[in-house]
């Protein structure tokens, strides 16, 4: 286990999440893609902390990423509820009002 191998696994996770977030139509599935991407960021940040500078500051950054993940989930579910209430749908394609 080296920094490079952990970062490679994190890159693979990020790419899988990106693919899901771009291609999925259901709001909850798009959020799953975003979650996988944040998961990859957590793994990469953990590896950076351990292999480059193992002082507590890096761990604090990880906690901030976890907090961001929680906020993303909560607001995402709230928006999904709003879209479902007004449009009767849980698809991203029914919420394209701001699309250019």
């Amino acid at each position, binding site marked *: *286990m080296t920094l*490079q*191998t*952990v*970062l490679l*696994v*994190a*890159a*693979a*996770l*990020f*790419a*899988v*999440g*990106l*693919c*899901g977030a*771009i*291609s*999925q*139509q*259901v709001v*909850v*599935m798009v*959020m*799953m*893609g975003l*979650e*996988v991407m944040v*998961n990859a960021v*957590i*793994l990469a940040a*953990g590896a950076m*902390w*351990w292999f*480059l*500078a*193992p*002082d*507590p*500051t890096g*761990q*604090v950054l*990880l*906690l*901030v990423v*976890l*907090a961001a993940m*929680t*906020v993303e*989930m*909560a*607001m995402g*579910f*709230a928006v*999904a*509820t*709003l879209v479902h*209430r007004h449009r009767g749908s*849980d698809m991203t394609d029914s919420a394209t009002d701001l699309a250019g």
Partner: protein
Amino acid sequence: MSGVLVDIGFWVLGVLAVASAVVVFVVDSMARATYALALSFVAVGLALLLLQQNYVGVVTVLMMVMEMAVMAVYMVMYMGMNPALMPMSMVHDKRAALAVSVAAFVVLGAGALLVPWPVRRGVPSPDVTAALGESLMGKQMLVMVVVSPVMVATIVGGIVLASGRTRYDRFGDDLDVRTPRDPERGGVGR
């Protein structure tokens, strides 16, 4: 734990995390997708334990398992079907998404392998969890001070977005309607 065991453990967890993340988007049932995502998070949480992140690893596992349970409830609510039985494939522009993600993997992977990473600076403290706690309550207190109002704002924002009828719907924009506009009359004082 010896180095070889750590290596084997990491590769098993790494492959499990990536494979179950792929399963999330190819499996034809929402419930299975949720379980696969939970498995991916647990694998990453355990990999963090291998990187000596005891606290963050355990928090990741606990938080994500609960989050996936909430997600399963939402799926049942919004999909309007039994998520374990109904096959589904709801994607658009799959080819472009694959191309973008492969390009992202190549760029990130090349960066991971080609960047001359610096040598490790400093040594970890004997108890990294205690060090994290002392740091959060000391030097890094500002982080907690900033995260706390963000969390409160999230709670308020989530409720405002998700609630169907608020007091402004019932009592008007200036809250000056004497009799609330309720779909059903009745209740205390109405």
